[in-house]
């Protein structure tokens, strides 16, 4: 009887000691599809591949930091540009994973397709250990993207009206060259100068390549930058019209939208004018 009690007691102590370990292991994991990432495995990778820019503490203060034009992400602040979630909320694990796969064009962040998908999932789990926000908050509810309606000329024309009405041109410029009246004054949340996206240069968007990604970019906003969220002010059907128009601003990038637009009388004139004026960077052009 007594013996049993003691063994029970030991059992209980063992469970009590192990419980917090189990809990932390679960909290720190990342889940991307069928993959589960482990922070301890991600830590090894981080201190091999990432810390040079993102720093020991994950605060973006790595030794390469001072040489970089767009500062490395500060994981302690846990503010992320590319999200499928509303502004001010944490991204999903999948969002972080996608950023690792994609890399960031026009910055020093490369694509990490050289790693295995398991390694990327492990890194996502480790990155989340830098901020306590991951302990107290969940990722925001994903922004719903309805199915893309058929592309029509009306949709592009309506998108054009929205571009003017919502004053996208204040920063992105009337032709989408990133040269609007406010463009030169923009700073990010680190008080570093930042340029609005230049559609005419046709480089990949910061957060993806598809129309679906483009939809999410202006609905979620790019937190930490001047790009706000339009989720409260654009209706879903209007948002797709804007997507279609924005594609036509990428005059050096072939797309169904650009082809259709160039096929119309109105569009052909506009695109021809956009193609000839100025340099790809938009300098010297208002």
């Amino acid at each position: 009887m007594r013996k049993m009690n003691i063994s029970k007691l030991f059992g209980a102590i063992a469970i009590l000691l192990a419980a917090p370990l189990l809990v932390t292991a679960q909290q720190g994991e990342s889940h991307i599809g069928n993959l589960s990432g482990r922070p301890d495995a991600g830590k090894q990778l981080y201190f091999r591949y990432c810390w040079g820019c993102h720093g020991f503490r994950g605060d973006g203060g790595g030794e390469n930091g001072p040489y970089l034009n767009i500062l490395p992400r500060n994981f302690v602040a846990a503010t992320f540009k590319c999200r499928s979630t509303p502004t001010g909320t944490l991204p999903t694990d999948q969002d972080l994973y996608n950023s690792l796969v994609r890399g960031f064009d026009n910055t020093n962040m490369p694509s990490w397709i050289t790693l295995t998908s398991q390694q990327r999932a492990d890194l996502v789990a480790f990155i989340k250990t830098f901020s306590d926000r991951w302990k107290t908050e969940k990722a925001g509810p994903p922004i719903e993207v309805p199915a893309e309606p058929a592309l029509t000329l009306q949709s592009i024309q309506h998108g054009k009206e929205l571009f003017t009405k919502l004053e996208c041109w204040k920063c992105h410029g009337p032709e989408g060259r990133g040269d609007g009246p406010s463009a030169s004054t923009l700073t990010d949340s680190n008080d570093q100068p930042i340029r609005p996206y230049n559609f005419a240069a046709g480089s990949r968007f910061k957060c993806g390549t598809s129309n679906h990604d483009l939809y999410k970019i202006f609905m979620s906003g790019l937190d930490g930058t001047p790009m706000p969220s339009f989720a409260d002010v654009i209706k879903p059907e209007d948002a797709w019209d804007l997507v279609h128009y924005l594609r036509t601003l990428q005059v050096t990038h072939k797309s169904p939208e650009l082809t259709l637009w160039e096929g119309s009388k109105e569009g052909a004139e506009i695109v021809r004018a956009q193609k000839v004026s100025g340099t790809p960077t938009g300098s010297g052009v208002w």
Partner: protein
Amino acid sequence: MKCKSVFWGATLVLAASTFTYGLPGGGAVSGKVTYEGTPAKQKPIDMSKEPSCAKQHATPITTETVVTGPNNALENVVVYISAGAPDEGAPSQEATFTQKGCQYIPHVLAFQVNQELKVLNDDQTSHNIHPLAKINREWNKSQPPGSPPIVDKYDKMEFIPVKCNIHPWMHGTFAVLKNSHYAISADDGGFKLPNLPPGKYTVTAWHESYGDQTQDVTIAGSETKTVNFSFKAKPY
């Protein structure tokens, strides 16, 4: 059953309101905020890029990083009880922050943790409201003319700089505070923190350009203690 819960609910609400607001015979802290030296000269703002706002101002308005009044009065200083008073639940009325004439009204808005914040756009142009929170969550939302108010709240104390990226001259502050004992110095530099029960308090005065100062004060009975703050002005 339902009656009973309603009764208890009402009792709770009553009890809460007596606790928060009905502190009869409480003391107070009042005083004046001033500056010494020469404050930076405020620069006129060129709003010509935004004609709908420019025409609302007969004479160009200036930046508001330091706003002064006669007799060295310093305006827009947040004076609050930083220690000695318990944390309070949020009041039911919302704090309103208005964008009008491409300016923030008020320039410094103080409200409590978890109190509802309402942001209005009275202009004929789009603004984006970008509170650069570090402790709370940073968000950034577009608000074209005629759109509904943006409603939000903050769950931690913080002084949050607010800006509009489209109109780079627009700067303001959200002062998110833990209790209801706060005031913002008026154009004569004066402030008053009423309804303070007897006790020892730390009073902090915070200014967006000059930082903060603290003073300890002890209140006995229903007396009104005078606490004055003086900030050293920086000429740049």
